[in-house]
């Protein structure tokens, strides 16, 4: 090796060492975009954390138990609002194509804050407190959700195909949008149907 080749080797080693020494500066000055796709997971399960325990048939007065869960993968801490709603087969459902929530009022709401990568779960205990039945219809007048009685008047007609009075609990996920400074529908919902019997 001649002197020029040694000079080149010295320069290369110096440059590499200088780059290694400069790495912490780059770390604090250059911010890379978040690599992960931003989304939220939402689930509803039966009391044993399985779908086998779904309360698909409810007697008036009996208690149904559901587990509601959310996992934040939005890459930032999120302010979530989970709206529990109740409807019969003809009342409006969230529009999955337009991404719009159901216009029905909430039965119950959960507000909570979740850091990125964290999971939140809660119980949703409900029972039909008061309902009247005729041969062709069922009128639910009151539901108890997590110990709070809520009055309503929701009628379901007898379903000739399924032979029962079917109602649906559905849970819409909303989140706080810092840009608009308001809660907006996150275009996610889960639901279960339950047949109410005397």
């Amino acid at each position, binding site marked *: 090796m001649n*002197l020029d080749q*040694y*000079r080149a080797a*010295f320069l290369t*080693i*110096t440059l590499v*060492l*200088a780059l290694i*020494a*400069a*790495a*912490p*500066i780059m*770390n*604090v000055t250059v911010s890379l975009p978040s690599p992960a796709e931003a989304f939220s997971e939402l689930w509803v399960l039966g009391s044993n954390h399985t779908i086998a325990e779904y309360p698909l048939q409810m007697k008036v007065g009996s208690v149904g138990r559901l587990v509601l869960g959310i996992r934040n993968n939005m890459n*930032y*801490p999120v*302010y979530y609002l989970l709206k529990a709603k109740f409807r019969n087969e003809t009342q409006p459902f969230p529009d999955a194509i337009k991404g719009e929530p159901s216009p029905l*009022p*909430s039965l*119950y*709401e*959960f*507000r*909570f*804050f*979740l*850091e990125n990568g964290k999971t939140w779960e809660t119980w949703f205990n409900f029972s039909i407190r008061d309902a009247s039945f005729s041969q062709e219809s069922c009128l639910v007048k009151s539901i108890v959700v997590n110990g*709070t*009685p*809520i*009055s309503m008047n929701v009628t379901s007609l007898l379903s000739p195909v399924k032979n029962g009075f079917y109602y649906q609990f559905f849970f819409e996920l909303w989140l*706080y949008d*810092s840009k608009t*400074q308001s809660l907006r529908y996150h275009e996610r919902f889960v639901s279960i149907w339950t047949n109410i019997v005397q």
Partner: protein
Amino acid sequence: MPPPKRVLAVGIVFAVIVSIALRGALAADEAASTLELAENSLASSYGAVFDAGKAGANVTALTRELDNAGFLLSKAYLEYRVGNLSGSIYFAELSHNVSSETMLRAMQLKEIAASEAARRFWLTVITSSASIIVIILMSYILWQRFRRWYQSRSRVLVR
């Protein structure tokens, strides 16, 4: 001429009904405005915690406090929905208080985190820059010595 007793009684009953209705309407207005206040307070508090987290503060404890405030606000909405206005006002005020305290703590934490981040940034810049200068100097000195040694060795070999 004094009014007949019947007219007076009807007047009193009417006044009582109007005052009860008025009180109910005022309570509903108060509950709605307290809910709005609590809602805004919670959103502002979330913004402050979010900013503190971005500044590098550990916001786990604050997130738990926000959770409490959110739970209380949900409870306030539920009480409002079932017609318990005093209960709704009570929970909304509690939520507002928790949110306000959390916001203050988040702002303090953000300031601490920001000054800590600035200190860390300058420390990093200074130590890295110093390291680069030392590496370049050491490399130059080593190169000079090596070159002298190489040239002297070449002269010996030529002789």
